[in-house]
């Protein structure tokens, strides 16, 4: 880093002494190229700060969801899931060895799918959801979905619950309902869940259900450089063309 670049950084972070600050400000007033350099550096710092903020926001959402899960359930649950994961890994490995090769698009769609497992409920009264989540974890998707439908009748704007419902349809193997649910959610105004829903809709549309809705969603993602799934889109489109 040059001396000037260091000075600009110190200026932006408030680290200059009073004297240095006065001198720098005086220099800035009379030097348009320095003004531009400062503006660019500030824009870079601010944009990176926004990234830090978004990461922290995600962490806080995870903390909120973990806070709502009792510690005993968490520890039993993690042991149970560890065992399930080991068994699943063994079964998966055997299946892979003896089955025919899985289509590439199917593997991609599965790997790239954004499931509900990684997200958490926000400040929702946990008593409403504890039964539903328990049923979902036990694979009782039908009952869990029924519970969610009743809940969503009263709270149609709960986008997170709508995402969970779509996810459970997929887990249940009901591709059509999953796609419909994701499609509706993708068209909502939820800043957090709509992008994820549109991505999942696209994944559930490859390779042979690539309809006009999918084309519109893909075009929108392609046009928005800051869309969360913009960078992954080209890979998905390989399975459509």
């Amino acid at each position, binding site marked *: 880093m040059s001396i000037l670049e260091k000075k600009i950084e110190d200026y932006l*972070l408030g*680290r200059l002494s009073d004297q240095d600050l006065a001198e720098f400000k005086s220099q800035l007033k009379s030097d348009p190229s320095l003004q531009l350099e400062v503006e*660019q550096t500030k*824009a*870079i710092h601010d944009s990176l700060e926004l*990234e830090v903020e978004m990461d922290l926001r995600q962490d806080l959402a995870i*903390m909120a969801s973990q806070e709502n899960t009792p510690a005993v359930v968490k520890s039993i649950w993690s042991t149970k899931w560890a065992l399930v994961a080991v068994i699943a890994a063994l079964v998966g490995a055997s299946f892979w060895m003896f089955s025919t090769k899985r289509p590439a698009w199917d593997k991609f769609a599965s790997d790239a799918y954004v499931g509900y497992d990684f997200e958490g409920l926000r*400040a929702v009264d946990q008593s409403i959801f504890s039964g539903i989540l328990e049923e979902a974890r036990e694979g009782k998707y039908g009952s869990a979905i029924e519970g969610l439908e009743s809940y969503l009748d009263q709270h149609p704007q709960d986008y997170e619950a709508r995402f969970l419902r779509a996810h459970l349809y997929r887990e249940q193997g009901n591709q059509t309902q999953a796609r419909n649910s994701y499609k509706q959610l993708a068209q909502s105004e939820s800043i957090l869940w709509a992008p994820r829903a549109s991505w999942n809709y696209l994944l559930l549309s490859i390779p042979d259900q690539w309809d006009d809705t999918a084309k519109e969603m893909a075009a929108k993602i392609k046009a928005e450089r*800051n869309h969360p799934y913009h960078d992954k889109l080209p890979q998905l489109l390989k399975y459509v063309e």
Partner: protein
Amino acid sequence: MNRTNPHEDLDLVQMILSSGSTRRKAIEIIYGWSTLKENVQKYVLSNSGSEADALDVFHEGIIALDRNIRTGKFRKESTLEGYLFGICRYVWQNQRRKSQREILTDSLPDEKGDGDPEIRTMKMEERDILSKIVALLDGSCRKILSLWKKSFTMLEIAEALHLSSPEMAKKYKYRCIKKLKAELALNPHLIISLRNVDSRKED
């Protein structure tokens, strides 16, 4: 509020100024301050907010606290808890002001030393422009600069990105900043847009 240990506050500030898991640990500790969280909730609920609003405000407060500590704006004149509560009140008042609801009534006692929390509120327009700036970076540059901004050391960045040495990480970071400046020069409308947003703020 029941927390007055200045040593713990100093430790937490130091942890936030550190990188990676240490910083996250500090955030987790702060997140666990249940009395504070309850008081924020009481404040928001008694000022026409919902439980969901209260949690949002609490989260925004922590984000602003983290930023203010990392940028040196937290001057340690009050407890961390008091400072964070002040931020949360400001955040909610600001949101209410924007939605032009009825006049607020403070139902909780003032916390000593709240002062001006120096919150920077960014308009959606500004956020949108800044997101576009970050999107000019390729994946690895974005990762390097993101870790650097979170105060990861060059050694930690080198390890995270499988670079051969901290010096290499430093070189990459420098190159990425240069690259981004070059991209900004090719996209002058972004800086001009930011300038316009700034000048509207001053109006």
